[in-house]
């Protein structure tokens, strides 16, 4: 493959917009002939998974028309989770199994139905065992999908508050009273809770 063809190939691949022959000329070293390189490159990509195609007076690499069915995933629109959802998810991850009332107590505001539904739909949380307390409320736990999405081996690998503070994610101020979740007291309880995740 000729050097000029290599260069044109790399530029077509990396540019965000289709590119004109004139722009190619400007970017290539002096004396190159991008028009000719394009002819060769276009031929090289004939019948392949992607093609060199003309878009107006510019050029671009595009997926072969017959393979469009493979591209569905690229059209998925991702949105950031709302703050309420992130906080709810974080509480479930750190305190599971946890009831809705407990989540509300920790957040200090009520948890809307939509927030829980959204997390359930994403399959990041699921219903856990009912609590053996009056009313036998349902609990929530995080799922394997959740661990996969966040690149965690287990919910126990979530950093504790001390570690968050050490990483600079928290103001570096000693909390009044010292002990916070995932340190001493809560450790047993949460460890027990998280082991349930893998029981059924």
């Amino acid at each position, binding site marked *: 493959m000729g050097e000029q063809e290599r260069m044109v190939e790399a530029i077509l*691949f*990396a540019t965000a917009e289709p590119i004109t022959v004139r722009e190619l000329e400007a970017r290539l070293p002096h004396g190159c002939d991008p028009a000719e390189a394009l002819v060769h490159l276009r031929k090289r990509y004939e019948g392949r998974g992607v093609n060199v195609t003309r878009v107006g007076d510019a050029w671009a690499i595009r997926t072969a028309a017959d393979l469009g069915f493979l591209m569905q995933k*690229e*059209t998925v*629109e991702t949105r*950031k989770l709302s703050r309420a959802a992130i906080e709810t998810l974080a509480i479930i991850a750190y305190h599971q199994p946890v009831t809705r009332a407990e989540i509300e107590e920790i957040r200090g505001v009520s948890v809307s139905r939509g927030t829980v539904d959204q997390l359930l739909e994403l399959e990041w949380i699921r219903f856990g065992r009912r609590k053996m307390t009056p009313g036998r409320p349902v609990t929530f736990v995080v799922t394997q999908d959740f661990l996969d999405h966040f690149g*965690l081996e287990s919910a126990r690998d979530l950093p504790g508050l001390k570690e968050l503070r050490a990483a600079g994610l928290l103001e570096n101020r000693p909390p*009044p009273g010292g002990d916070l979740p995932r340190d001493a007291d809560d450790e047993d309880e949460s460890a027990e809770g998280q082991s349930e995740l893998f029981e059924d």
Partner: protein
Amino acid sequence: MAENLFEEDKVSVSERLAAEALIVDVDGFEGPLDLLLTLSRTQKVDLRKVSVLQLARQYLAFVEKAKALRLELAADYLVMAAWLAFLKSRLLLPPDPSEEGPSGEELAAHLAFQLERLQAMRDAAARLMARDQLGRDFFARGQSEMVTRVRKVTYSATLLDLMQGYARIRTRDDFRPFVMDRDSVFTMEQALERMRGLIGYAGDWTEISSYLPEGWDGDPVRRRSATAATFAASLELVKEGHLEIRQSEMFAPIQLRKRDH
């Protein structure tokens, strides 16, 4: 013999000069280990063959010089100096068979290992950063959205979002305005109300403890709160002219009496 040992402590002029030169940028060092690594380079030998004894002397000369110049050295520099002085004595003196713990050679070997490892990591970091990097030397696809047929919304969040969210809640918790547990607090208002009803009967000197409300004398937390509130209420009543209060000496019982008008 003793003279020889003192001889060892003498630092050559060049070492003193080197120490002086380093002091200029003491802030540029990332701690004692970094400084030791820099000092070891002046020996111009393979790090595996570095003379720890010489290094200890260089370091101590550095610290001496800094002291002479009245430079503030961080505590960890002084801790290291003390440790190196100890190491130096271990290396110079014949081993004391009665002494426990690792030998001077073992300690020196470990320090040499630490220096070599730190240098190795610095070299590795430099090689890593010298590699071709994405977005600088090689590039990803420029136009990733090619077909827009199916529109499906997914929600994403990163682990960092999650942790920061949790940190936010917990931090807010930490700084929630301090609210006392009301169950165990007897307020001054309560005490005042109670005492106003009782002082009519206090013709003689009565100990203040007898004014404590019922059920507040068992648990120490509750007793303390009730005592403090009752005492404060008493002072308030004295100020209003309803009560007299006295204490014969320090820590003696406090007594109250209705004031005659």
